[in-house]
Every structure is written in structure tokens, then in C-alpha cells.
């Protein structure tokens, strides 16, 4: 079959091979695209070449996601077979594709089926790439044998005799101490160090990587290698793992626990023990004992203690602290078992490569993943790391263009003279901005774009490669100023062209403020890692560095305070001092009196020993306490240790007025209903309520709606009455009969994975040349509609305990974005207190509900984490109050049903009606439905229909989960996903609820049993709301909440809360409802940051921009 796209994929000539898919698809018809898809699908099934298969899969994904839905003749409505969805969740991608293709064959192409095919091809593409990386990691020579060891007797490694040599004086064993710098990427590699990309296009994978020592300014005396790993023999047959920074330790006595990564905070240490071959991965599930293995490796009756410390360098530094810690631990373990010849000192080049390969293996085993440059701290100084084409003897040859592991060229004095190294240290201010965000979606976006060779992104990639050469040139000529210019150009040019989300409002505010303050002495900005906001670099004229460090500390803290409700900050920003490390990873053997672990170790472990009866302490531990005691008296590094130990032994009591009191104050202030709370707790405990009880009875008849149940406005030319509706709506707008209600009570749990920011204030995207918040977008749409109709629209923003004050002060600081009409906040009047979930509900959510399985190792880690969380819930007390967090993270909004009653209760509607008696309608919408505006046609349709509520729905895509429009017991209503008796019922429904609702105010008051003049009667209003609330179902839901601790560490806990939902108004017989099908771009919601890129690419962002009129 002659296929143009297959020709592009298989071409050897770069000018054909690197052609953009989009360019081809723009001019193709639907029929042509379907023919190409058929050919591509057949091609990818038979091709033995990984690169061709993956590229075909990404082509298929992009055609179904971005092109077919836009083509004339592709219906918006269609059904996605649930069977295929189930297979997709279980990672049976090939079978899912077959199911979806069969449906497409029988039913014809449609937007929903294409959305399902796009998801399946996308996931299969990434699975194929992940499988290849996994195969390569396992087949790297030096790693293979560990997978063949299935019995302790097969274990060939032995501890080096030097480590078993006891001290003559006290019998203690020596300590192997490894110190490792972290790495920074001086060019930002345009993400080319993602394994897949280096293997696809090794020539494009180039990184300038520097090993550095660090100190937190104002806290640490001088820069030193921040990563430390220690290993020693102990006289107990256990594997003792200790993380000093995370204050975690475990004495592991059985093999399965070594492979249980998420049980505690010691996953990284476990991964190192496995990747280094001490506990080879082949032993997982062998049923043998750890003591057997330790006896063979270390000696009978002996064990190992492995300790890690990163000297409190904050998480999310973008300096690859975790990977270098893994490298450091792996290096120590490999030295100890003779796999590296150098027991002490630096490693040799071949040993560094092996340690890097094992660190990658460790990351894969631990279910995480970094780039191939991340273990750069193992190497010394400055180095150029480049992808390497697969050659004879490489396991990748014939499979991918590039090798898994890159090559490292250490820059010599000619490449980067000593002077430039010095000047760089004198000019660069390295900071952690405090933000911690998940860069996973960004890495997926980059992979996808590079493999698709999307035009602008591919061009930008070429520019970024050119910028690296420019920086290399600037280093060779000792021109730090030009380095700054180049990194700035990279950030504002290629990097943002490839991934707009790499920049944030916070970052750009900082850059602007620094530029304003330092003018020409500010030489440049430089982003570290996957995205900005965390680790960043600012380059200054050397004489201003000191002032710049002071200023950055102040401006970051100030800007963080301004934006802390809008963006996810994990910690207070810090400024680092740094120095280029000339050694790479380095080890020493500590003997005799020097055989001491880091001070943090003793601060953490010694109190436990001191509480023990001295007679029960072993001789080694007693000797260690002696050494430690002597060191405390003489070593300045241990100054203050006695006080620290005393504090740990006798923790100070809680000061009054702490968390508990604040929480109770908040509850009182926000109308917490304790009796309702206790009733829910009782019901939860007794099993009367819970996730499974949210569902309607299984026998409930649920069917899709009929064509006459909806008015379809999704096609531009239908139906006939549009013009009359538009005129009707236009008139109402001119008369000032309508107001907008934006629901802004939520914390965007999915948006920031439970970070507790105000989603409404999140500057989510650059529109009209600037980052815009959700609120700003909604006001811009209202501004435009008001101006077009000559009457400013009142815009109400429904807030909650969490969002009210931040939104109020945010809007005040920005003068309400100069909104020309009434801009009113409607404060929440109800609040709930989160509870520790029941194990029953956790199991229901994780075991009974359909779950997307993860890739093999990640799934293992998730299973382990979930087991730990169920244990946490049981230990803490099921259905007890969740109070172990910031007070605001313990409360919860109680569902959007309450937002309209709040308008009644807080007097906002009463006042507005007083000021505008002509007001008859409200348009209610979610904060993330950014395409919804007061469209006159829809308003006219609502008026003409005469219903109390007109709901907007959209046709369903695979990702639209959570209920839909249905006939339930023959009544047309919106059915929440939580209430669906069976998962598959949802897949029979054609339409998804957008939540955008047109409300007829007089009818609504009738439903509540209120007259207009009774709105000022608080008791009457409260009674009517209470009466209505009893008719509304209560759902139990699980939400993820982040708990922050330490230095940028975050834990996510599932907590239980209850909600009443607005869509259930449609179930009340006394409420008349109508339903309008609207175009997807109007009705879709932005729930997850991972959606943003596709939202930008498929034209949705441009659509929203066309509805907006900015104040500036």
C-alpha cells in the first residue's frame, strides 16, 4: 500500500524523515486520513524496528487526537465500547486497539472512538519505549548476571576484606564513606537527555553538565559535596538502612521487605542495595532468607548498615539530588563488594559508567526515572555528555539508533580554562524558588513532540542544539556574560516554543524584578531541570553577586508570599553557594576513632540507644557511643550536639494556640455542622455510607437519552431556531437580565495533586501574551460580552473558607482586573472536616473500581504504597477526624450544590436583586470550564424553553469520566459517576455534563419555597436550604491531600469527605430542566495540567482567547 506517512517514517534522508505530521494532515480529507491510519496500523504491527513502530504509534495517536475530530464528516457523537476501556486500563493496549478499531469499522469514525484510539496508541507508544529502556537497562553488560541469581548460593559477591577488619582497640568495623556532588545542566538540554530521545536521535542528545558542591546560604558554612553514603559491617544479620534527612530507619530481616519500596522512606536505599547486586534483583520472590544471603556476602552472623544523607538539600532542586544519591549509594556498595576496583578515592572511567548504569537500573527498579545526565555528579568537573549511536556489540544495535548510555567527555583546560570556571562561580547565583511540581507530564509532552517532529518544536530543538555550541564557545573564550545571554535566549526562545509550561508566572515575575533592579548587570537567566520555579540560575556581573544573592533571597520570599495561594510552593525559597567539584564521587575508609557516621545520624539514632538499658546494648554500639561522646567533646562539627540530643530525648511540649485551636476556630468561623459530621462518622463506621453506598441500586434502569431530550447546538448550522434565540438572548443581555456565577471554592486537587492552592488564582497559561489566572479569563469573557451588549455583566465568584480571603486580596491587589461591572464574592457558608478513610473505602476505590494499571515496576511501588496507606488509616483510626496537617488542609468544601444556596444565605443575591431588579438569569459554571461565556443564543434557548435550569452538555470522549446525561427510571437527568451502579453504564451515555447551568432565578426561588421579599429573612432562607438539602444525596469521596514536611518533602494522603452535587438538582421532580449540547471547546474542563498541551494544540486555547477581552 502506498502511504505517504510510512514513507516519512522509513525514509533515510533526514529532509523526508523529519517532515512534520501536522503539515501532511492539514490538507488531507477524513477519508484520506482513515486510509493512512489503516496503513500505519498494519505497518506498525509488522515492523520489527522499534523506532518505526513507535513513530507510527505516535502518528496514529496524533491523527486521532488532533486531526480526525476536526475533519468535516466526523460525527461528534458515538459510543466507546467499555470492553476496550477495560483493556486499556489493564494495559492490554493491543487488544484495546482491536476493540476500538472494530467499533470504528462497524459504527463509522467518530470523535469519541478517535479519542479512545488516541489514548490507546499513545499509551502503547510509551509502553513500547519503556519496554525498550527496561530491556536495555537489563542487558547492559555488567547488569545481566544480577537477574540470573535466583538463590543465595548463586550470589558471587563477597565483601572486601578491608571492611571486615575490626579495630584492635574496640572491635569496631571501618566505615566506607562516599561523598558525591550534584549536577547542574548549564545549557538546559531541551530535555534531550530523556532516554527515549537519546535512543531515537543520539546526535541531538547533548548536555553540558557540571558537578557542584553546595551550601544553603545563611545555613551552611561552605559548599561541600551534598550527597553522602556510608556503609559498614554490623554484628547482627540484618540489613540496616538509615536515611538521615528523612529521619527513617529500618532493620530489614527478610528479602520481600527489601523489594517493598513504598513501605517507608527508604525506597532509594533499597533500590541501591538491589541495583548494586548485594541483593540481586533475581532474588525477588525466591523465598529464601536475607540472613542466608548476608551470611554469604558479609559473613555468618554479620549484616550491613547503609546510611544516606543529602545534608538537607531541599527536594525539587532540579540538581538531581536523588539520582546522585542513588549513584553514591550504588558506588559505595559496589566498592564494598569489589565490583569497583577502587575502594577509596575517585572512580575510574569504566567504574563511573558502571555506577551510572546501575543507578539507572535502580531508578527503574524503584519505579522512578530521570534523564541519563542525572548521575553526572559521579563524574568530576565540567563534561559534555552526548548520546551515542548504537554500534556492533551494543544490545541496542538494530533496535534503536542510539545506545541507552551516553558518553562523557570531561572538559579540559582548553575547553574550559580555569579562569572561566572561576568566573562562573563568581557570577552565578543558584537558587531554589520553592516551587515543587510534577515534571512527568512535561517529559511526556517533549517525547511526543520530538517523535512527531512537530514543525515549530523541531525547529526549536535545532536552535537549542545551536545554543549549546554557543555556550561551549563562550566557555572556551572565558565569556560568562555570553553564557548568560545564551541561557536566557534558550529559556525565552526554544524551550518555551517546545514546552510553554516550562515557564511560570512566578519565574517570569522574578526575572522581571531582577532585571528592573540590576539592569545591565543582570547577565541572564537559566532554568534547571524539567521546568522552572524550583532550581534556577541567575547570572550577574561578578561585582554584584553579593547584592544579587541578598536581593534574590528577598524577592523570592516576597513573590512567593504574593503567589502562594495561586501556585504550589513546597518550601521557603533558598539561595545556594556553590563550587565546581573536581573529583566526582569520592570515597574514604574511616578507621578507629575516625569511624563515625555523620552528626545527623547520631542526632537521629543515639536517642533510641540512650533510652535502652546499657546492658542490652551490644559491645559495638557501646564502643560507638564512646567514640561519639569523645568526638562531641572535641570535634567542632559536633558543637551543639548535646543540646540536640537533649531536645530529642525530652521533646518540648506543644505550645498553646497551635494547630488544634486554629482548626477549631476555623470550623466555628465557617459554619461547621458538628451534628451532621458525627452522623456521617457514625454511618461511615457502621458501613451505612461509603463509596459503594454512593451508587444507585444495581437494578436501576439507566439508558442513554433520546435525540428529542436535548437541543443540539454543537454543529454551527443546527437547529433552525438559533437566530430567534440569539435575538432573545441579546435583548436580555442588553436589559441586564443576566449575571455570571463562577464556582471558585475548590483547591484544584487534581491540578496540583492536592497541594491546596486556589485554582481560580492559578496562572495556568499564557494568553494574550501573559500568564492568566482562571478568574482573569472568566472576567475577560464577561468584559467582552458586556461591552458587545452595552451593559456590564455582574460577575459573582462563589468562594469557600479556603479561597475567599486569597481571592479577595488577590483581586484587591489587581483592582479586580479593572472589571467594568459589579464583581462580587459570594463567601461559602458551609464547611466539612476531613476524616481518615475507612480501609473498606480505600479497598473499594483501589480494588473494586476500575483502575489504570501502571507499568510493571511502578505498579509494584503503587501497590506497596497503597498497602502502607491502608495500614496508616487503620493505625490512625478509621473515620476519625483528619487533623494531622495544616488546618486549611483538614477542612473541605462540601460540594458545589451548596454554592447557589450560599448565594441565598449570604445575602449576595438579595443585594444584587435589590440593585438590579431586572436580573432574571444566572449562568453558573465551573472555574475550569474556560470556554463558557454568556452566549446570547444559549441564553435565548434557556429563556425560550422556560425551564428552571438549562444544563450544557458535550459529547463524550474517553477522558470525560464522572457521569453523564441519562434516562434514569425514564426521567432525563444528570447522573454523577459516583452514583453509577456499574462502571459500564457510563459508556452507554452519549453526553457528559459540563456543569454550566442557566438558572431562572424566580423559578429557583420557587423550588426553594422562597419569595423574592423573603431573601432578607435569614431564618426562612436557612430553613428552606435545610429542607432542600435533605432531598439531595450525600456522596462520600476520597481526595488526595498533600502534607509537607522537612525540606520540600511531600506525602500524599487519601482522606474521606462528603459532598452534595449540583447535578442532582435534575433528579428532583419539582425542578424543570432542559439540556443543550454545546461544542466541545465551550464545554470542556481543564482538570489536569497534563491536558494543557493538547488544549493548546487542538485550538481550544485560541478559541478561548477569541472570547476574551483583556484589561491590559
Amino acid at each position, binding site marked *: 500500500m502506498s502511504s505517504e506517512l510510512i514513507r516519512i517514517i522509513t525514509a533515510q534522508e533526514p529532509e523526508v524523515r523529519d517532515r512534520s505530521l501536522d503539515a501532511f494532515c492539514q490538507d488531507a480529507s477524513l477519508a484520506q486520513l482513515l486510509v493512512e491510519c489503516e496503513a500505519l496500523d498494519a505497518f506498525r504491527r509488522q515492523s520489527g524496528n522499534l523506532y518505526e513502530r513507535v513513530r507510527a504509534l505516535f502518528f496514529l495517536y496524533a491523527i486521532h487526537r488532533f486531526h480526525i475530530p476536526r475533519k468535516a464528516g466526523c460525527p461528534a457523537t458515538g459510543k466507546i465500547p467499555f470492553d476496550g476501556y477495560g483493556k486499556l486500563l489493564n494495559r492490554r493496549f493491543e487488544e484495546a486497539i482491536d476493540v476500538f478499531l472494530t467499533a470504528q469499522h462497524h459504527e463509522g469514525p467518530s470523535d469519541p472512538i478517535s479519542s479512545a484510539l488516541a489514548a490507546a496508541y499513545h499509551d502503547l507508544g510509551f509502553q513500547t519505549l519503556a519496554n525498550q529502556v527496561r530491556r536495555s537497562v537489563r542487558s547492559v*553488560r*555488567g*547488569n*545481566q*548476571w544480577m537477574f*540470573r*541469581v535466583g538463590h543465595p*548460593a*548463586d*550470589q*558471587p*559477591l*563477597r565483601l572486601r576484606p578491608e571492611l571486615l577488619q575490626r579495630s584492635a582497640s574496640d572491635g569496631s568495623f571501618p566505615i566506607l564513606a562516599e561523598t558525591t556532588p550534584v549536577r547542574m545542566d548549564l545549557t538546559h538540554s531541551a530535555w534531550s537527555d530523556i532516554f527515549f530521545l537519546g535512543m531515537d536521535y543520539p546526535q541531538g542528545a547533548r548536555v553540558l553538565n557540571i558537578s557542584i558542591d553546595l551550601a544553603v546560604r545563611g545555613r551552611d558554612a561552605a559548599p561541600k559535596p551534598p550527597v553522602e553514603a556510608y556503609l559498614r559491617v554490623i554484628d547482627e544479620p540484618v540489613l540496616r538502612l538509615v536515611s538521615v534527612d528523612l529521619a527513617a530507619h529500618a532493620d530489614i530481616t527478610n528479602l520481600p521487605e527489601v523489594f517493598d519500596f513504598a513501605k517507608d522512606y527508604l525506597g532509594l536505599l533499597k533500590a541501591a542495595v538491589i541495583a548494586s*547486586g548485594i541483593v540481586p534483583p533475581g532474588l525477588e520472590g525466591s523465598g529464601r532468607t536475607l540472613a542466608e544471603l548476608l551470611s554469604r556476602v558479609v559473613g555468618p552472623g554479620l549484616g550491613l548498615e547503609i546510611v544516606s544523607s543529602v545534608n538537607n538539600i531541599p527536594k525539587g532542586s532540579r540538581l538531581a539530588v536523588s539520582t546522585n544519591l542513588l549513584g553514591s549509594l550504588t558506588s559505595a556498595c*559496589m566498592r564494598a*563488594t*569489589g*565490583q569497583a576496583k577502587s575502594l577509596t578515592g575517585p572512580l575510574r572511567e*569504566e567504574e563511573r559508567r*558502571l555506577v551510572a548504569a546501575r543507578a539507572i537500573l535502580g531508578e527503574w527498579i524503584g519505579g522512578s526515572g530521570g534523564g541519563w545526565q542525572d548521575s553526572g555528579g559521579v563524574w568530576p568537573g565540567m563534561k559534555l555528555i552526548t548520546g551515542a549511536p548504537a554500534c556492533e556489540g551494543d544490545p541496542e544495535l538494530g533496535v534503536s539508533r542510539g545506545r541507552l548510555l551516553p558518553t562523557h567527555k570531561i572538559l579540559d583546560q582548553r575547553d574550559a580554562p580555569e579562569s572561566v570556571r572561576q568566573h562562573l562561580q563568581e557570577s552565578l547565583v543558584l537558587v531554589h524558588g520553592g516551587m515543587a511540581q510534577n515534571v512527568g507530564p512535561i517529559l511526556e509532552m517533549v517525547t511526543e513532540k520530538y517523535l512527531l517532529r512537530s514543525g515549530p518544536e523541531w525547529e526549536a530543538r535545532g536552535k537549542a542544539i545551536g545554543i549549546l555550541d554557543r555556550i561551549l564557545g563562550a566557555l572556551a573564550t572565558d565569556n560568562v556574560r555570553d553564557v548568560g545571554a545564551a541561557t536566557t535566549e534558550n529559556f525565552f526562545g526554544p524551550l518555551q516554543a517546545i514546552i510553554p509550561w516550562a515557564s511560570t508566572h512566578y519565574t517570569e515575575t522574578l526575572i522581571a524584578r531582577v532585571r528592573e533592579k540590576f539592569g545591565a548587570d543582570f547577565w541572564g537567566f537559566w532554568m534547571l531541570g524539567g521546568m522552572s520555579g524550583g532550581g534556577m540560575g541567575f547570572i550577574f556581573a561578578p561585582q554584584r553577586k553579593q547584592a544579587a544573592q541578598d536581593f534574590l533571597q528577598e524577592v523570592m520570599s516576597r513573590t512567593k508570599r504574593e503567589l502562594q495561594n495561586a501556585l504550589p510552593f513546597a518550601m521557603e525559597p533558598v539561595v545556594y553557594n556553590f563550587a565546581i567539584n573536581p573529583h566526582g564521587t569520592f570515597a574514604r575508609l574511616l578507621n578507629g576513632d575516625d569511624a563515625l557516621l555523620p552528626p545527623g545520624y547520631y542526632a537521629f539514632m543515639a536517642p533510641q540507644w540512650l533510652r535502652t538499658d546499657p546492658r542490652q546494648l551490644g559491645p559495638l554500639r557501646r564502643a560507638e557511643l564512646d567514640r561519639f561522646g569523645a568526638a562531641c567533646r572535641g570535634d567542632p562539627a559536633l558543637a551543639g550536639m548535646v543540646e540536640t540530643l537533649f531536645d530529642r530525648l525530652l521533646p518540648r511540649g506543644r505550645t498553646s494556640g497551635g494547630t488544634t485551636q486554629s482548626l477549631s476556630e476555623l470550623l466555628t468561623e465557617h459554619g461547621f455542622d458538628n451534628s451532621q459530621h458525627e452522623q456521617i462518622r457514625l454511618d461511615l463506621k457502621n458501613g451505612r455510607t461509603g463509596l459503594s453506598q454512593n451508587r444507585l441500586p444495581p437494578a436501576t434502569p439507566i439508558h442513554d437519552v433520546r435525540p428529542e431530550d436535548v437541543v443540539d447546538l454543537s454543529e454551527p448550522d443546527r437547529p433552525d431556531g438559533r437566530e430567534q434565540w440569539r435575538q432573545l438572548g441579546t435583548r436580555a443581555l442588553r436589559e441586564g437580565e443576566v449575571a455570571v456565577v463562577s464556582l471558585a471554592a475548590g483547591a484544584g486537587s487534581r491540578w496540583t495533586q492536592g497541594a491546596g492552592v486556589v485554582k481560580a488564582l492559578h496562572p495556568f497559561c499564557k494568553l494574550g501574551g501573559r500568564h492568566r489566572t482562571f478568574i482573569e479569563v472568566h472576567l475577560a469573557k464577561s468584559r467582552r460580552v458586556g461591552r458587545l451588549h452595552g451593559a456590564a455583566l455582574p460577575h459573582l465568584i462563589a468562594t469557600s473558607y479556603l479561597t475567599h480571603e486569597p481571592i479577595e486580596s488577590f483581586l484587591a491587589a489587581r483592582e479586580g482586573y479593572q472589571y467594568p461591572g459589579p464583581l462580587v464574592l459570594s463567601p461559602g457558608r458551609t464547611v466539612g472536616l476531613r476524616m481518615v478513610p475507612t480501609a473498606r473505602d480505600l479497598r473499594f476505590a483501589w480494588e473494586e473500581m476500575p483502575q489504570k494499571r501502571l507499568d510493571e515496576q511502578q505498579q509494584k511501588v503503587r501497590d506497596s504504597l497503597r498497602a502502607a496507606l491502608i495500614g496508616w488509616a487503620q493505625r490512625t483510626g478509621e473515620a476519625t477526624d483528619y487533623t494531622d496537617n495544616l488546618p486549611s488542609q483538614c477542612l473541605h468544601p462540601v460540594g458545589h450544590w451548596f454554592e447557589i444556596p450560599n448565594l441565598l444565605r449570604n445575602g449576595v443575591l438579595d443585594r444584587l436583586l435589590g440593585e438590579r431588579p431586572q436580573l432574571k438569569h444566572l449562568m453558573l459554571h465551573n472555574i475550569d470550564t474556560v470556554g463558557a461565556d454568556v452566549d446570547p443564543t444559549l441564553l435565548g434557548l434557556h429563556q425560550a424553553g422556560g425551564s428552571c435550569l438549562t444544563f450544557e452538555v458535550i459529547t463524550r470522549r474517553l477522558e470525560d469520566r464522572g457521569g453523564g446525561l441519562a434516562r434514569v427510571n425514564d426521567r432525563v437527568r444528570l447522573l454523577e459517576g459516583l452514583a453509577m451502579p456499574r462502571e459500564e453504564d457510563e459508556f452507554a451515555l452519549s453526553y457528559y455534563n459540563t456543569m454550566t447551568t442557566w438558572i431562572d432565578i424566580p423559578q429557583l426561588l420557587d423550588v426553594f419555597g422562597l419569595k423574592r421579599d423573603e431573601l432578607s429573612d435569614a431564618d426562612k432562607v436557612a430553613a428552606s436550604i435545610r429542607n432542600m438539602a435533605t432531598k439531595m444525596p450525600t456522596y462520600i469521596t476520597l481526595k488526595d491531600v498533600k502534607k509537607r514536611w522537612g525540606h520540600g518533602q511531600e506525602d500524599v494522603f487519601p482522606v474521606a469527605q462528603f459532598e452534595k452535587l449540583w447535578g442532582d438538582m435534575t433528579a428532583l421532580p419539582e425542578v424543570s430542566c432542559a439540556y443543550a449540547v454545546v461544542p466541545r471547546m465551550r464545554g470542556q474542563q481543564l482538570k489536569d495540567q497534563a491536558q494543557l498541551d493538547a488544549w493548546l494544540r487542538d485550538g481550544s486555547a485560541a478559541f478561548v482567547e477569541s472570547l476574551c477581552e483583556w484589561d491590559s
Partner: protein
Amino acid sequence: MKIRKAVITAAAPSQRALPLQSLVDRDGVQKSALRIILEEAASAGAEEIGLVINPGDQKAYSEAAGDFASRLHFVEQPNARGYGHALRCARAFVGNDPFLHLVSDHLYVSRAATRCAQQLVRVAEAESCSVSGVQPTRENEITYYGTLGGRRVHGQNQLYEVENVIEKPTPTEAEQTLIVPGLRAGNYLCFFGMHVLTPSVMGLLEECMRDLAAGDRLQLSPALAKLATRERYLALDVQGARYNIGVRYGLLFAQLALSFDGNDRDEILTQMVELLASRERSA
């Protein structure tokens, strides 16, 4: 190339007594382990045998050698500085002749019509180069042996061209540098304790000795690694088995192997079955 000399090292302090132990050989005759080893060497054509020993051990070894005592040239290793050093002590004895080298703590049982040493010497004489006896060994055992990397000689299944030698490598190192195409995954060629070496090895040991740090011990493997880069050096997968009499139960297994390979096989088998049958199974 004709092999007329053999060197047997027996100077390791922990192994001094091993060759003096008695066993019953294949022919049913009780002999010392040393004598069995000397027979192995003599069968391969060694007319003169250099025995490297600790000072003071000569008398005991002469007695244990029996008829072969007359062929022996005793070489003393004055201080124990490693296996390679022991061999180097025999350089005057070796002179400019190629030689068969055996260790004194291993006994060999051939699975072919010719003895193990004969197989090795035949190949060395035919190929006129150094040849080491090797056996494919699973990776969990290689940390006990000198291990080599190389490739099979075209058309000869048991013969390998040696490219690299590492003493007691970890499997991590072995996988990177010692994989031999054609062997089963996870298997490496490890020394059999038997070599035919050209006299240039003595010069290479001398070079290695010069580079040795004070207190370090000289091994044979680094010299053999150098040998592979200087002249043709082969390895033969010997048709036979080696038995280390220096490990726990080593002598017992060596004795059983000799017995099962000799005249008394049926008698030993019968007694073992009786022993097993009469032994009550413990609870």
C-alpha cells in the same frame, strides 16, 4: 615445541600438607596426592619436575614422591609473596624451555582416553604456544578462579584464543570484558589449574613483580593477561574434572572421583548404597 619440564607449586603456607595426604588411586594403590600429581605430569612427557616448596619441606616431599623423587628439582620460595611469585622462583629451573605447570592442591580425572595433562601438552606442542587448561564455570563460582575472555578458534570446539585474563573477577567485571561467544549465558572460562607456558612468562612475572606495591602478592593472572597481548596464547577446554583437595570435603570428593573412575568402582558403589540404605532417615 617439546615439553620436557614441569613446575608444580606447593609453597602456599596453608597448603603445605595437602599433597602429603594419602588416597587410593584409580589402580587401587594407596599413594600420596603428590605422587598422583607427579604421575599426571610424567604421563604428559615431563622428564624433569621442579617442585616449588617452603624452605624445610624437601624431606617430606621426597618421601611422598616415591619413585618420582629422582626426577624432582626442589626450588624454595623464601617468603610467601603469592602464587605468581612461587612460579617465578622456578625461573632458573625452567631456563629457556616451555613447561607444564600444575598446582599441588588439585587432582584431575579425565573423561577422555588421555589424561588431562596429556591433552594439554598435545595441543601446546601442536600449536607451539602457551595453552592453559580451562573449564566453563558458572558466574557464581568465578570469584574463586582466574578467568579469561577470548573467542573460539575457528573449527576447533575446545580451543580458544585468549584475549584477557582477570584474577577472581566479579561477574560485573566478567560480563563487561570476559564474555566468550558460544558459551552458555552466565558461564565463563576459568582456569583448570594446569598450564603449558612458554618461558617468556617468567619475564612477564618479572615485569609484574617490578610494578608490585610493597606488601602486595604477585598473582599469575596479570602475567598471563600480558602474555595474551605479546604472543599467541590458547586455552583448552579440558575433557576432565578438577578436584580441589584444599577445600572442605575436597579430599573426600577427590577420592570418590578417583574411585568411580578406577578398578574399585563397583566395590565403592556397593558400599555407598549399603551405607545409604542402613542409615535411618532422621525425623
